[in-house]
């Protein structure tokens, strides 16, 4: 997704992005659906397998690169953002995707995630959030809800969960999106992330079939989805629900309290919802203040905000660093002999009082 020099689009099919490796996730794991969504997206964006690098840390999600027929680097726990930074600074032409999880990206690697976002390295970060440690057999994670019973918290966890999207926004990310494993909208979200120049952060809710089964059913299940999912589209009113599912609703701003609120939307005489009358706000992907409110909306009283929440590009880190490098190199030759002889020197063999 580097548009410094537009990369020629390459024609591929989903099959071209499959490796000969046996996929080792548990049967029914949400990762399978995400893998397929990515393999479906890559041909659509014209990605070139030779120019694409998937970088991951450690955890179930981080096995991802082995299953994508591109360049791949399965690094160490939490450090994928740092490795990706080196890759991108060494070769900014590479299209870099990061695959991480709630443990890898928010706990052991939280620091690196923060700095990659703050610097705005041009890459896509897919954080698979299953609210549990899967590969180490089911301990609670930094995104686990309070009271999560796990081998390390037999009486339930007591710490408050982190919100990956709020964390990313707070770190200075310029693109925030949300999706979930089996959602048909996921490829669209991935495409938008890829189109964004800069660090694009995508939280993907992912069902861990073994240790945290159906954790996201309350909003991810097809049944009731209309009332529980708010799919955000730039320039369109924040509407959800339907007449059949219990009414059309929208998100409005409670100006007095400076918070969001859910409002009922009446259907007008022409059969379209009269959202303006209800005060429903129009999604503007460049509005960071509303983005903050959207990612903090408590699920239950509010639907789950999904899709592209914030998208407001800024200059990328590698452009800035390499721009500085090339400015520093302008008009200068890399003359090693001259460099070695720099500073105050003297010549032995010439008069001592006459330093060279």
């Amino acid at each position, binding site marked *: 997704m580097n548009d410094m020099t537009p990369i020629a689009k390459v024609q591929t099919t989903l099959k071209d992005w499959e490796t000969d490796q046996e996929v080792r996730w548990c049967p029914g794991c949400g990762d399978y659906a995400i893998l397929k969504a990515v393999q479906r997206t890559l041909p659509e964006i014209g990605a070139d397998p030779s120019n694409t690098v998937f970088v991951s840390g450690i955890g179930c999600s981080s096995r991802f690169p082995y299953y994508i027929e591109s360049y791949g*680097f399965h690094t160490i726990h939490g450090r994928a953002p740092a490795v990706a930074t*080196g*890759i991108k600074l*060494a070769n900014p032409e590479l299209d870099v995707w990061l695959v991480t999880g709630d443990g890898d990206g928010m706990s052991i690697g939280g620091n690196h995630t923060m700095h990659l976002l703050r610097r705005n390295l041009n890459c896509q970060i897919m954080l698979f959030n299953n609210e549990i440690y899967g590969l180490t057999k089911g301990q609670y994670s930094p995104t686990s809800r309070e009271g999560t019973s796990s081998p390390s918290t037999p009486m339930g966890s007591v710490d408050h969960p982190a919100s990956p999207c709020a964390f990313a926004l707070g770190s200075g990310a310029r693109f925030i999106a949300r999706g979930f494993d089996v959602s048909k909208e996921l490829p669209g979200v991935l495409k938008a992330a890829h189109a964004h120049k800069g660090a694009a952060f995508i939280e993907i809710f992912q069902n861990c079939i073994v240790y945290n089964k159906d954790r996201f059913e309350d909003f991810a299940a097809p049944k009731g989805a209309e009332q529980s999912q708010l799919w955000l589209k730039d320039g369109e009113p924040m509407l959800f629900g339907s007449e059949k599912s219990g009414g059309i609703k929208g998100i409005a701003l409670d100006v007095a309290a400076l918070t969001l609120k859910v409002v009922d939307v009446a259907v007008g005489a022409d059969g379209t919802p009269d959202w303006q009358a209800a005060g429903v706000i129009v999604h503007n992907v460049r509005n960071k203040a509303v983005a903050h409110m959207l990612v903090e909306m408590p699920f239950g009283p509010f639907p789950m905000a999904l899709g592209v929440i914030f998208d407001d590009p800024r200059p990328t880190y590698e452009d800035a*660093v390499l721009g500085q490098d090339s400015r520093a190199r302008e008009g200068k030759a890399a003359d090693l002999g001259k460099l070695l002889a720099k500073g105050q020197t003297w*010549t032995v063999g010439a008069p001592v009082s006459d330093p060279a």
Partner: protein
Amino acid sequence: MATVLAEPNSPARPGDAAAPEAVVVRFAGDSGDGMQLTGGQFTLSTALAGNDLATFPDFPAEIRAPQGTLFGVSAFQINFGSTTIETAGDAPDVLVAMNPAALKTNVQALKPGGLIIADAGEFTKRNLEKAKYEVNPLEDGSLAKWDLLAFDISALTLESVKPFGLGNKEALRCKNMWTLGLALWMFDRDRAPLVEWLKDKFRKNPVLAEANIAALNAGHAYGETAELAGPLKKLHLDPVPTPEGLYRTVTGAEAVSLGLVAGAQLAELPMFFGGYPITPASAILHNLAKLKEFGVTTFQAEDEIAAICSAIGASYAGQLGVTSSSGPGIALKGEAMGLAIMTELPLVIVNSQRGGPSTGLPTKTEQSDLYQAVYGRNGDAPLPVIAARSPADAFECAIEACRIAVQYMTPVMLLTDGYIANAAEPWKVPDAAAFKPFPAQFLAANNNPAGGKVLPYKRDARGVRPWIKPGTPGLMHRIGGIEKAPDTGDLDYSPATHQLQTDARKAKVDGVAQGIPAQEVILGEAGSKLVVVGWGSTYGPIIQAVRRARAKGLDVSHVHVRHIWPLPANLGDLLKSYDRILVPEMNTGQFKTVLRDQFLVDARPLTKTSGQPFTIAEIEAAIEEALA
């Protein structure tokens, strides 16, 4: 330091009729007094006068420790002369003490009969209390075994800069230049380069430049007049006979930076340097940040782990990844070093060692990270280790580290220490064209003889896998820290595979020994009664001690090891040719253990962990004891 000063009771000090071959001067003052600057400029003028020299900057960990305190003392020692100089000298001949605390913490090191120059103006009641002196040592006769020259440098400085209308604080800041002026007079040095330097340093504030120059001249003039009476004498040391050529001074940190740049050029690679600030390693990051035109990209990472991981990422993408730190940071990088070993990517890791464990002694020197370098990772994780013996030697060692990393697809650790990093020595500017290039090779086409997919872990005769840049058409593959099958690199942790790959990684690193020079004897020969085996910055005191011992007729040789891992192929046989083996090192005996382990030899330790380098006398005494 020079052999002429071997007798501890016949100090060579300015004032002796005959000029000695070498003199040791220590400047000591408050950390805000500009002693490192004074020392640095004195070093430069010494080099310009053609003397050989070695320096030892010794400063506190605090940036501005409370004024006048014992722990706030900053010192700079220089040993210079008309003979070859290899250490900063055991004991100073001259101590310049800018306050009571500086006197108290340094005077015991001074040779009996040595000269103390003290700023009497700073020996106030309050400063004496801070230095825990009950009576003024300048007045109570307690300094009788030394020559004492105490006068009010502060007042003399204030007087000299009076015409420039500086505030009291600013005026007193010129004290170091006054002192430097006196030192320049004592050792018959040209003031002109200093004047030029001051003009350039303060080019934005010509008044300050003029004031400092006035202070410098006043100090010099004081020497002229004070010569008439008292212990102060002018002393001229002839230039040391050295090979013809162009010279400059270089610190270890500079030499490492230059060597890395040269190494990357010889490998025909851009360099990526990932670093995180830490004493005493930060200077390398600072130096390289200014060398972008040499294809260097520097990255100040969020932490030590990100620093090494970004370097690994850059190496993966086809650049020469380099990271640098000191012990605590190297500890944090341990897991990532394992990743570089497992993925078999080139990487240079520079460790400027300091006193440990934990935060330890941030600004003091030690060699106690040798175990960490050789053994300090999880799993069987071998990597080559090289140790520089001096600031100038660090240049060649950095090139050697780059060469091994690129030719063997392996991380390499380069060890220096706080002493080497900060110390300066004259350096004959090397001919950049004299080094043999070692261009990096990248795989450009499928290496699978049977067709099919590329084989990223197909090893050559030396056990080295190909370097494949992402972005190369058609060579897509996956690598990672998990165990992998031979050739394909496919994820595979079956018992046979792990056995095979562990053996292959070890054999590859062991094989580095085939491509390094045989171990030489620095001084002496094979088969003598005693060999002193050193590594790293103990080189200076060891060679001087061995030289002195040999001059006394003792049968002792000096072997100094650059390649710590793998060790040179002939080292075992060489060591077995000696009756006794003595290993001096600034730790509790780490290299001694490695030598015992590798060669089953009776290596005996001589250890020191005070944060200070060995003195020649300490090693000389150990040699005599070992041969008694």
